[in-house]
């Protein structure tokens, strides 16, 4: 692992609530190294999306800051792509699937054969045949896959993903996980993934950052010592995998985990 690519420095965020200000993030700090894959997990409403928006330069933190290669982020950096949690709103309804994927590529001189790149991305997320459909002609899961395809085709140096697999079935999810890992390796991306799925966090990451309930702080950071090459079946059969999953579970719950069987079930929920 090389130098720190991304630094989240004491970020705090307070919103105007209904009656009084809502402190969403108390104080969160962690770093992501070049080419690292970091997952962020935490309870619903703890500020994961907010944090991602701060890192992407889409919203300023109330206090603290985020740095990319040591430079404070105030605007979305060009080498970064985001898969938004609210995928339906992030797709442009006036563009087809292909149009949505091609749009960010317009200015990318460094990507030759854009049409082919887009077609490959569409194919890779299992949407071959739907390139000319509009987002509103697709199911929820299909829309979410368009958003993923767009981000992958963009080949960013840094990829931020906010629960990108929430709306797809288990099989598709596993395929997409492997797709992201594969693309990440091929194009040397640094990835920050927000997920509610503990297995997914462990399976995909080099490190897992666990956030507390709001006002949130970093509750724990776990380094995932699994072999770099992951496989849906063999990796998940490893004892280390089971140990890590339990460790994340414990970090979230702040208590001892139940039996492995139940943990798997609950965590998988």
């Amino acid at each position, binding site marked *: 692992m090389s130098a720190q690519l991304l630094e989240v420095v004491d970020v705090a965020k307070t919103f105007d609530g209904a009656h009084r200000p809502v402190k969403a993030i108390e104080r969160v700090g962690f770093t992501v190294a070049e080419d690292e894959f970091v997952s962020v997990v935490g309870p619903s409403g703890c500020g994961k999306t907010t944090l991602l928006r701060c890192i992407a330069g889409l919203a300023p933190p109330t206090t603290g800051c985020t740095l990319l290669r040591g430079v404070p982020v105030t605007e*979305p950096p*060009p080498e970064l792509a985001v898969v*938004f949690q609210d995928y339906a709103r992030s797709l*442009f*309804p006036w*563009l087809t699937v292909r149009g949505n994927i091609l*749009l960010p590529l*317009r200015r990318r001189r460094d990507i030759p054969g854009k049409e082919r790149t887009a077609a490959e991305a569409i194919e890779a997320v299992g949407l071959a045949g739907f390139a000319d459909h*509009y987002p*509103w002609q697709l199911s929820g899961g299909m829309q979410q896959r368009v958003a993923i395809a767009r981000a992958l085709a963009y080949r960013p140096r840094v990829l931020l993903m906010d629960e990108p697999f929430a709306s797809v079935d288990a099989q598709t999810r596993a395929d997409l996980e492997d797709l992201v890992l594969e693309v990440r390796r091929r194009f040397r991306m640094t990835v920050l993934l927000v997920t509610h799925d503990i297995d997914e966090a462990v399976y995909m990451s080099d490190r897992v950052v666990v956030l507390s309930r709001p006002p949130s702080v970093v509750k724990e950071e776990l380094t995932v010592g699994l072999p770099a090459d992951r496989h849906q079946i063999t990796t998940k059969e490893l004892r280390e995998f089971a140990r890590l999953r339990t460790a994340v579970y414990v970090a979230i719950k702040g208590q001892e985990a139940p039996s492995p069987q139940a943990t798997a079930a609950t965590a998988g929920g």
Partner: protein
Amino acid sequence: MASALSEEEVLGMRSPQIHVTFRGAPVVLGLAGVALALAGWEVVARTALVSASDLPSASLVAGELVRQVGRPAFWAGVGATMTQWGIGMLITVAVAVPAGLLMGSVEAVWRALRPVVEFLRPVPGMALIPLTVLLWGLSTASVVFLIVFGSVWSLAVAAMYGARNVDEGARDTARSYGLSRLERVRWLVLPSALPFIATGLRVASATALIIAIGAELVIGVAGLGHDMAIAQTAGDVVHMYALIVMSGILGIAVHLVFSGVERRFLRWHQSQRPAVPA
């Protein structure tokens, strides 16, 4: 304006009336509406309500219109009006849409222009007739000036509202993928604003027509309005109403053209999606 949503979806209930869904429905229903209105006019004109007045019956006016349609002078008037309207609309669109989008997306621009825009918007062009004649003469230029002055604001305001209609999710996406300012205008702001601009265009095109005719009438530049002025001073009420009806018919024609264009450019839009999916 062809809606995507079925009546039930919008009204929240199944409407009791028969669903008219055959192909020619727009034309047939439209004509039915016109027939209904004409019948209403005929009744009003023939009953006591306004019988003592100068409102001629629909049939009388229709007869006059048919007579006028055979005269080249009538078509010269129509042609002149539509030419002036066309030039005026072109300038209006060219100025208002970019200006409105800019005002809607850059707060500083809006604040800088707001005093002028909000002050000039309610200034009646017709009240500036002496100034207009002094500046542009008794000519087409005057009419075009008044058309632009009268309709540019409403379209600009529509475009401004449209530009503010960009969904935050879409905006964030565009920003995070580093779309340039120009790309954002073309691929994000413009499509988001299009529904408002489409409505604004329909409003402005009718306003422009009204102003064209009004300006011709007042300034005395060739066109339907000028013919109206002559009919008016001559006391030829039937001719006058025939010309008024003609301006309404032009309004329908203009509407048809614009909604056709709209259907082309707003195919993706909620309002244009197929009604009850087969």
